């Protein structure tokens, strides 16, 4: 391979006296951006180059999991991403289930999907909230976070924790059954979230769309090359969804659509978010109608973790989490703990290659619209 083929991203250069270029730091102070920074090189108001500066939330989960048994790791997996703890619970639990080969009870599968979709809804509400905040539309932020709280109340009722469910979705099923009367409560909350999706359409005024239309356009071939997944990829015209293409749990029995847009700009990503929320509501309604009775965990009797061994083997699990493709590679050599865990978060790609690519050549004023339209979460990037 010759020199020309190497991909090198230029480092931020020192400022020269005769230069009109200057360095600009977006983050890492947490102003809704998350604990993450982008170093920009500007010429006037235009971004010449951008370099992501991750690492402020690096906690080394992959290494920590090598020293803990699956039940402890289930709790640990909450923290991979603050905004969608239950989705990461599910990724971890599925990896362990596939290794042990345990048959997860049908009721547990329904509850898992129910919780994953509720988690997606509240994550999208956060997305809407921070996006509004970034565009200077504070009302949207407050309204979205207000509605998100209804879902957090449900999480508190079902799992005991509002944000972190403490490994509610655990290997073998879920920790406990839905409490009495929770199904009616979920239906009531769904009505409220539906109300919120109508509000989102009402809020969609000129001030909102003008900031995002035609901004941060990601072409289809660039999106695939840069490793974009989930809503970001679907906004570029690729009809793909892990829930349909690589179905897990009970998703192949459910009826839902994959929203796709062709434009690839920030506004398309925003519209995808709204449509995905409607699809999630549809899924939850089906789950509530069909949920069977039965036990919620296999084995129902808890064995002391010190006696449980993970069978030898390796698996790669893919899930569609709110931000894109969330994966885990788990390798076991027959010990109590997994030998190696690799966690693949969607934002590792969205926040480094995709963001650096999109920011090149844009105006400063467009940075927030691009940044927040990618539905970023530094926690699952740094892990």
């Amino acid at each position, binding site marked *: 391979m010759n020199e020309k083929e190497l991909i090198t991203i230029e480092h931020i250069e020192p400022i020269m006296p005769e230069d009109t270029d200057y360095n600009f730091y977006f983050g890492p102070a947490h102003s809704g951006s998350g604990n993450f920074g982008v170093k920009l090189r500007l010429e006037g108001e235009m971004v010449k180059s951008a370099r992501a500066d991750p690492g402020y939330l690096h906690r080394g989960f992959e290494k920590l999991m090598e020293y803990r048994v699956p039940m402890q790791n289930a709790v640990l997996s909450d923290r991979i991403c603050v905004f969608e703890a239950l989705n990461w619970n599910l990724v971890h639990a599925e990896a362990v289930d596939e290794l042990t080969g345990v048959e997860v009870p049908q009721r547990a599968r329904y509850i898992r999907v129910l919780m994953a979709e509720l988690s997606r809804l509240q994550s999208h509400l956060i997305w809407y909230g921070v996006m509004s905040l970034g565009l200077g539309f504070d009302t949207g932020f407050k309204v979205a976070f207000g509605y998100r709280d209804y879902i957090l109340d449900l999480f508190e009722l079902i799992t005991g924790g509002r944000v972190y469910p403490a490994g509610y979705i655990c290997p073998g099923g879920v920790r406990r059954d839905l409490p009495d009367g929770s199904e009616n409560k979920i239906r009531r909350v769904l009505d409220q979230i539906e109300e919120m999706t109508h509000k989102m359409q009402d809020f969609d005024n000129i001030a909102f769309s003008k900031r995002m239309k035609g901004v941060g356009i990601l072409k289809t071939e660039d999106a695939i090359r*840069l*490793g974009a997944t989930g809503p970001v990829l679907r906004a570029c015209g690729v009809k793909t969804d892990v829930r349909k293409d*690589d179905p897990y749990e009970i998703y192949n029995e459910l009826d839902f659509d994959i929203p796709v847009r062709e434009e690839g700009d920030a506004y398309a990503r925003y519209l995808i978010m709204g449509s995905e929320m409607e699809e999630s509501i549809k899924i939850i309604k089906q789950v509530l109608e069909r949920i069977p009775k039965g036990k919620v965990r296999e084995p129902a009797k808890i064995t002391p973790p010190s006696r449980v061994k993970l069978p030898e083997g390796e698996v790669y699990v893919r899930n569609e989490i709110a931000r894109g493709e969330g*994966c885990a*590679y788990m390798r076991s050599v027959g010990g109590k703990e997994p*030998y190696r865990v690799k966690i693949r978060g969607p934002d590792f790609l969205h926040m480094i290659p995709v963001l650096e690519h999109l920011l090149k050549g844009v105006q400063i004023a467009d940075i927030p619209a691009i940044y927040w339209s990618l539905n970023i979460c530094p926690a699952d990037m740094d892990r």
Partner: protein
Amino acid sequence: MLRKENKVIEDVSAKFKIAGNVQRERRVWVTIDKDNLVALCSFLKGLGFEHLSAISVTDWPQEGTFELTYHLWSYSEKILLTVKTKLDRANPCVDSVISVWRENAQIHERELHELFGVKFEGNGDLTPLFLEGWDGPPPFRKDFNWREYARQQHYDKSNERERAYYD
């Protein structure tokens, strides 16, 4: 059943004389030596494996090897194929796959270089990603004693409250 999975393995073994196995529906694993890795990867990309989902390293200190796994997804065939290859642990060098998956591979390789010390030849930017001012060995290797490292860096033996960490 498993027709398209077996088809992929047939295509690969016809060209590279290697065996593979189908783990289950949509999951295929193949192993190759490191010299043919890039050739196999570009062949697979031609078959439709456009999306590099992740690259991972597993450390085997007793064997003296690093095992690299490349997890590839095909949007058209809907198959996840994992390519495995082994490196010598004493000299962990492998050809980079950025000629195949460009920036996506670049960032995964940059992460693994930092955490495992694997050198990807041909990748022009392997600067540290997460750790700032790190001077120890690559921290995700199995022989890195993180408990001892944390004790030395963060706890003081002469401090009565922290002495417990030394017992």
